[in-house]
């Protein structure tokens, strides 16, 4: 079973993940309509490109925007989760070994201590987000089943992976669960709010261009001061 899970299933889930997200990105761009949105996407490149880049870049930096600074708890939780969520799948030693063996692509890998720290931070971030989702009156108003579903879907690969890494028992079971939940995450990402993996960039770029092209980029001197 493990051979299937780690072999064909893994390849299939990667394909679904990448193709799915690519399709969503293409669908997003193709669905943009300069007349409807009233943004001259094809014009004023000198300010639209910096506008898009700043709109993405500043939000990737903790405290980089007034929005982040105004919500320190949310910010801490998001970044705790996302550093690990973005970096570990790519640079965890086990992952790089498998990647190199299967594709020949050799990525550098994190030292164990750093990987452990990132993983613990991500799990802490997830727990913080869950607590926030559960206790904040704002989030209680907004919560939907999908919010909880993606939170759990994200939690599982971290948790199972970390249990396997601790190796305190039932290793084979934990690693199998890790591979399975990881694949589940990959497969479902394009069809859930996890699609923000790519759509975050599209949406942020759009709003950055919107402000840079149309809403004052000319007078403001380019990018919006997020």
């Amino acid at each position, binding site marked *: 079973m493990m051979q299937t899970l780690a072999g064909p299933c893994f390849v299939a889930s990667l394909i679904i993940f990448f193709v799915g997200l690519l399709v969503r990105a293409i669908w997003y761009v193709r669905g943009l309509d300069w007349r409807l949105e009233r943004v*001259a996407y094809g014009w004023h490149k000198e300010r639209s490109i910096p506008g898009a880049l700043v709109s993405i870049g500043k939000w990737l930096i903790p405290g980089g925007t007034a929005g982040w600074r105004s919500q320190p708890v949310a910010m801490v939780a998001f970044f705790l989760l996302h550093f690990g969520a973005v970096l570990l799948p790519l640079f965890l030693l086990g992952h790089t070994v498998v990647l190199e063996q299967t594709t020949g692509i050799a990525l550098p890998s994190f030292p164990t201590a750093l990987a452990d720290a990132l993983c613990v931070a991500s799990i802490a971030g997830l727990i913080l987000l869950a607590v926030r989702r559960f206790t904040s009156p704002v989030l209680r108003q*907004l919560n939907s089943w999908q919010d909880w579903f993606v939170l759990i879907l994200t939690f599982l690969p971290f948790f199972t992976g970390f249990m396997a890494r601790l190796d305190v028992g039932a290793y084979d079971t934990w690693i199998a669960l890790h591979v399975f939940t990881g694949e589940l995450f990959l497969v479902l990402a394009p069809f859930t709010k996890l*699609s*923000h993996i790519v*759509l975050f960039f599209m949406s942020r770029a*759009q709003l950055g261009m919107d402000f840079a092209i149309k809403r004052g980029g000319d007078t403001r001197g380019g990018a919006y001061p997020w």
Partner: protein
Amino acid sequence: MSQILCSPTPVTTKEGIHALLADKGGEEYYRQMRNLKVDQNALAFDLQKTCKSRTRTWLEICAHCGMCADSCFFYKTNNNDPKQIPSYKIQSTLGEMLKRKGRVDTEFMMHAMDVAWGQCTCCNRCGLYCPHGIDTGVMFSYLRGVLFKQGFVPWELKIGSGMHRVYGAQMDVTEEDWVDTLEWMVDENSDEWPGLEIPVEKEGCDVMYICNAREVKHYPEDLAAAAILFHVTGTSWTVPREGWETTSLTMFAGDWEGCAQNLKRIYAAVDRLKPKMVVGTECGHAHRATVVEGPYWAGRESGDAPVPFLHYVEWVAKVLREGKLKINPAKKLKMPCTLQDACNYIRNDGLGKYTREIMGYIAEDFREMNPHNEHNFCCGGGGGLNGIGLYRKERNVGLKNKLDQIRATGAEMVVTPCHNCWDAIRDMMEVYEEHNIKWTFLKPLLLKMMEIPSHIEHVDQG
């Protein structure tokens, strides 16, 4: 009253406007609305056309993180009512409509109307606080368009849209009224300012001035002030006979067809008179409608107006900078004063540096509100809310936020170069009985403190 007042059809006749105006407070209009059937197929079609990948993605990837809540003054002033969270407001209206593919009833549409006009001023502030770059204010504007097409629009904005369609202005000001008012203002002021004129329909000037019908109808002295300032600065200027109205209640109403009609009137004037630039009066949404969104309604691919369109604050900053307008240092504002940043041209057109430049010339004790500039809060009356009787109570609650902001600066004067902000600030002072803070447009201030160049004849009327 048996006449149909509330229907999906826009008002396009004087009779239609008079019938609506005769219905005091829109009582019968709203009664009819309660029985207005939703054309679900048309709604589904409109949603399809209105919500493409940007809007659908916004609605779908919203992480329900709640970061927009605190950015909304309605949420704050309603004791953090979860129903006032921007994300909730749009998801439960436009989002729900999309989910149900337009299969919604009259009650739902009326609720959506209450939210779209009574709980959002389209100030776009929440858009700055969303990590995913979701601009809920923009979506509300589209929701208004969808509701307008089905006839679910507040009474005053139904009238406003009709006014624009019938008179080419937000109020029933005809071309004769316009030209008469201009002549009257010249007569009224030429004793004090010999040689003052308001050139109508003059070709090839540097500036074509466009304004707000309210100025023509209710405070023509604002027109006179504009004329005097152009006169004193030696500006070659004109006003068009047609296409002088720069405001757009049609934008507030979601009447996109009406918006395009306004624009085409103004652009036609530009074509006729070929000015080097157009200057619009101290109005926020007018600038948004004419300069920011307008070029798109006129179908201009570049998104740029045919000639530079300046907001009044840009023009004032320019003439101050160039020394064409000089301020008498002794007459600068001594009292602590603050500045109201209008969402529509500060957050949404980046003109904050110009208003601050102006404050540097005219005020000795200028105090910023917190937050300010791009991150300012709406005055509380934007997006047409000031004018809607049905939501007066909701608006008055929201006004408290700006009042608190103003009070915190310790200012005794709020410089307010926007009609809507000006109204909202006037009303909040009245509603909350604050009698020690004044508010003003720029023009009257400048008239009082400018130095009159020696070559300009001025007869003191003391």
